[in-house]
């Protein structure tokens, strides 16, 4: 069984004449005893015999027209600028892709920066105002000043407007 496994792999070269004399004798000896490998060899030989061989021989007229068409195609290829440098088009595509991605990246980055930076500035302004109001309250209470209600309302309005800007 194991012998057949190795022999089958030798059958192609046996038919093709690629084995040494010693190897050929070994295969031949095995084939005399093994019907399965013999049958396999015959089937392989049939395929070798059936495989179409030889040249396809067209007419002289065919080769005459072939030459004319070939000259035309070659002239077209030489005239066309892209065909002379097929790499240029291919190189442009990744460069364009990178340029588009970078542009989108910076645009998006700038947009989000503006949004967050304005919110941050508003937050800071709000905090400053709150601190100032608290300070005024402390001063008021320290000096017992009559801080008018209107001033409070005005400050609250400013705070409200900043918060909702």
């Amino acid at each position, binding site marked *: 069984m194991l012998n057949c496994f190795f022999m089958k*792999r030798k059958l192609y070269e046996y038919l093709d004449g690629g084995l040494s004399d010693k190897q050929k004798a070994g295969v031949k000896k095995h084939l005399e005893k093994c019907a399965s490998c013999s049958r396999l060899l015959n*089937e392989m030989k049939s*395929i070798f015999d*059936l*495989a*179409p061989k030889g040249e*396809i021989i067209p007419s002289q007229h065919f080769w005459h027209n072939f030459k004319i068409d070939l000259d035309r*195609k*070659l002239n077209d290829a030489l005239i066309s600028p892209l065909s002379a440098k097929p790499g240029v088009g291919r190189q442009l595509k990744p460069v364009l892709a990178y340029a588009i991605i970078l542009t989108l990246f910076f645009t998006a980055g700038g947009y989000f920066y503006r949004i967050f930076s304005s919110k941050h500035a508003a937050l800071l302004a709000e905090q400053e105002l709150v601190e100032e109001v608290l300070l005024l309250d402390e001063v008021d209470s320290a000096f017992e000043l009559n801080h008018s209600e209107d001033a409070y309302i005005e400050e609250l309005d400013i705070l409200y407007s900043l918060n909702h800007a």
Partner: protein
Amino acid sequence: MVDLADNESVLIANLKQGERQSFDILVNLYQQRGLNIAYNFLGNLEDAKDVLQEAFVKVYLNIKGFESRSKFSTWFYRIVLNCSLDFLRKKKRTARFLESLTDEEEVKERQIPDSKPDPAKAAIDNELASDLNDCISCLPKNQKECFVLKHQNGLSVSEISQVLKCRPSTVKVHLFRAVHNLRKCMSKNLSERKR
């Protein structure tokens, strides 16, 4: 007597300078061989002609990239094979191969010579050859390339290994597997032939 290889290297050197006459001579030298490879791969004369022309145009445009480390023939056969594969990928026409067998001129070239005394047997052989061509067209790419180059174009294993840029042992494996697959594909038809 001038060595053919020296002649060819002179032609290639001139072609690298853009000399059209050298290109025409190279075309004459390799057109038949190239047509055989393309035709055995594609099964259609018209397609083989288009592929061969495309291959020669590529040779002319890319000759400066050819280094004389390998033979021009192996480089050219590789281009023909690649063009054939590209053609098949684009067209995906194995059916066209079947249609091409009805063309009278091509059928003449494909028929097995009727030297046998039994015409009925010859007719069966022709039919089996047709079935085998169908099976060959269904082989995986590597196996098909190796089988077509070896059995239909007469290249040696070492030549095929140079064309396909692989080791000779790899070529042998592909050939073995190709024959194994063809045998499976043909098993029914072969048993009918034996009756």
